[in-house]
C-alpha cells in the first residue's frame, strides 16, 4: 500500500515535470515563431529601407535566414541547450558572454530580496492571522493592500528620495562590477533589494495570513482549543504543520514573481542585470538577445512554479492520494 502511495506521488511529480518541459518547449517554439511571423523580411526590417540588396542578402546569410524555418529552429534550440546563444545584432558579441554575468547579478539581487522577504512575510502573516481583526492586523492589511497597489517604480523612487537624496545613506544607482568586494556589492543593492522586498512581501504576507486563517477555522483546531490547549501550542504544533503546504506554495510562487518583478527595479536603479538587458534589447530590436533572455526568464519562472507545484504535492496529504 505504502509503495503504491509513493508511486502515485512519483507519477504526479513526473507528470508535472513533463508538463513543465512541454511548456518550455512550446514557449521556445512560440518565441521562435513570433520572430518568424514578423511582417516582411526580418533582415529588411532591421536594416531599413535604404539597405542594398547585397547587404540584405549577406545579413540573411549571417542569420541563417536562407535556411528553412524548421532547420533553423532546431539549430537555435540545439545551440541554446549547449550554451551557444548566437550573437547580438547590436554589437556582434556572443550573447552567452553578455548574459552570463548579468544573469548572475539578477539572481544575486533576487536572492537577497528573498532572504529578507520570506522570513519577514511568513512571521508577519502568522502574526496577522493570530491577532486577526485587531488594530495590528488592520494596519498591516491596509499597508499591504497599498503596497500591492503601488507600482514598483513608485516604491523605488520613494526609497531613493528618502535614503539616497535626503539621508544620503545608499547610492541611487546600483552599479556593480566584478572587482567589487561582497560588502560593496551589498551596499550597492540595498535599495533595489528593499524595493523588491516590499513589493513581494505584501503579497506573501496576505496569502500566508489567508492560509493560516483557513487552517485555524478547521474542526481539528477547534477541537484543540476546546481541549484547553494553550494558544501557542495550538498554533505551532497543530496549525503550522498543516499550513506548511499552502505557505510553501505561496513562497515559491512569489519567488517566481520576484524573478520577473526584478525587470522594472533593475531599470530604475540601472542595475546590470538580465531584465535591464532585455528591456534595452527590446527597444533596440536586438531580436536574438530578446529571444535568449526571454527564454532564460521563462525557464527560471517555469522552474520555480514547478518547484512550487511539486512541493505542494509532497507536503499535502490530500494531493498525495489522487482520486
Amino acid at each position, binding site marked *: 500500500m505504502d509503495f503504491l502511495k509513493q508511486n502515485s506521488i512519483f507519477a504526479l511529480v513526473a507528470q508535472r515535470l513533463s*508538463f*513543465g518541459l*512541454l*511548456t518550455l518547449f*512550446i*514557449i521556445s517554439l512560440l*518565441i521562435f515563431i*513570433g*520572430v518568424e*511571423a*514578423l511582417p516582411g523580411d526580418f533582415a529588411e526590417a532591421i536594416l531599413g529601407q535604404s539597405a542594398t540588396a547585397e547587404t540584405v542578402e549577406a545579413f540573411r546569410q549571417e542569420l541563417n535566414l536562407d535556411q528553412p524555418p524548421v532547420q533553423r529552429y532546431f539549430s537555435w534550440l540545439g545551440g541554446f541547450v549547449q550554451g551557444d546563444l548566437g550573437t547580438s545584432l547590436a554589437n556582434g558579441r556572443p550573447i552567452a558572454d553578455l548574459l552570463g554575468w548579468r544573469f548572475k547579478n539578477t539572481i544575486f539581487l533576487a536572492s537577497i530580496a528573498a532572504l529578507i522577504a520570506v522570513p519577514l512575510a511568513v512571521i508577519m502573516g502568522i502574526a496577522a492571522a493570530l491577532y486577526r481583526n485587531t488594530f495590528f492586523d488592520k494596519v498591516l492589511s*491596509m499597508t499591504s*493592500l*497599498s503596497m*500591492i*497597489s*503601488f*507600482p*514598483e*517604480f*513608485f516604491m523605488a*523612487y*520613494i526609497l*531613493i*528620495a528618502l535614503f*539616497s*537624496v*535626503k539621508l544620503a545613506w545608499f547610492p*541611487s544607482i546600483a552599479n556593480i562590477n566584478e572587482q567589487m568586494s561582497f560588502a560593496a556589492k551589498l551596499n550597492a543593492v540595498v535599495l533595489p533589494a528593499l524595493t523588491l522586498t516590499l513589493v513581494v512581501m505584501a503579497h506573501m504576507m496576505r496569502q500566508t495570513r489567508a492560509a493560516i486563517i483557513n487552517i485555524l477555522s478547521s474542526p481539528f483546531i477547534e477541537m484543540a482549543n476546546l481541549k484547553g490547549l494553550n494558544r501557542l501550542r495550538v498554533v505551532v504544533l497543530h496549525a503550522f504543520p498543516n499550513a506548511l503546504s499552502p505557505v510553501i506554495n505561496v513562497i515559491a510562487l512569489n519567488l*517566481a514573481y520576484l*524573478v*520577473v518583478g526584478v*525587470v*522594472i527595479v533593475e*531599470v*530604475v536603479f540601472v542595475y546590470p542585470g538580465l531584465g535591464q538587458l*532585455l*528591456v534595452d*534589447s*527590446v*527597444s533596440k*530590436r536586438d*531580436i536574438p538577445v*530578446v*529571444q535568449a533572455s*526571454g527564454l532564460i*526568464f*521563462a525557464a527560471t*519562472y*517555469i522552474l520555480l*512554479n514547478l518547484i512550487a507545484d511539486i512541493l505542494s504535492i509532497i507536503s499535502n496529504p490530500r494531493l498525495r492520494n489522487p482520486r
Partner: protein
Amino acid sequence: MITLLSHLRTAPLSAKIGMGMVLITLIAAIFAPLIAPFGETEIAGDVWLFSSSTHFLGTDSLGRDMFSRLVYGARNTIAIAFLITFLSFVFGVTLGFVAATIGGWVDQLLSRMIDILMAFPTLIFALMVLSVVGTSIPALIIVIALLDSTRVFRLSRAVAMDIEVMEYVEAARLRGEKLWWIMRHEILPNAMPPLVAEFGLRFCFVFLFIAALSFLGLGIQPPAADWGGMVRENAGAITFGIFTPLWPAAAIAFLTVGVNLIVDWALHVASGLKD
C-alpha cells in the same frame, strides 16, 4: 438601481474612500480640458520648476505644466486600461463559458492552451511580442488584452462550471435553447458578482502593467501624457532632490489603491452571496 444605491450606502468606510478616490480620478479624466490650466503638450515655463501659483505641481523635464499633464494623463491611461480590461473580459468570459458549457475536448484543448500561456511570465511575454510587432497603441491593446484574458478565462470557467450543473440550466437545455442563449441568459447573470469583483482586480493589474510598460519606454509613446511615461521622462530629476517624478507615480498608486479598496468589499459581497 435602487438596490444598487442601498448597497452602496451599506458599504464600509474603506470602500467609500475607495469610491471617492476613483471618482476624483474619473472626473479629472472626463473633464480634462476644463480642469487643466495648460495644454497636454504645451511648453508653459522653465524646466523642472518647483510648485508655484501658476504651476500647481511645477513643470516637467521639457517645461510642460505637470498638473495639466497629470490630468490629461488620467484620460489616456485610464481609457486604454479600461478598453484592454473590457476586451480581455470579452475574450476570457466567452471562452471560459464555452469551455464550461460544452466541456469535453473543447474544454481540454482550451484549458491546456491557457495553462501553457499562463506558465509564461506576462511582462516577459509582452516585452517579447512588442519587440516583434512594435509598440503601437493597437498592438499594445490587443497583446495585453489577450495575455490578460487567460486569467479571466480561468475564473469564468470555474464560475460557469458551478452554474452549469444547476437545474435551471438543465431545464433550458431540455427546452432546446442554443448554447449562446444559455450562456447569455442563464449563466452570465448568475456569474456577475464574482466577475464584477474580478473586473476591478484585472483593471488594477492592467493599469499597473501599462504603467510599467510605459515606464520602460515601451507603452504609450510620448508626447501623449501617460502616468508611467511621465515617471520615466522625469526620473532623472530625483537625484537632484526634485520630486517631480513622484507625482505621476503617486497618481497611479492613488487610483489602484482606490479600486482595490472597492474590490476588497466587492469580493466580500460576492463571496457572501455565494454562501
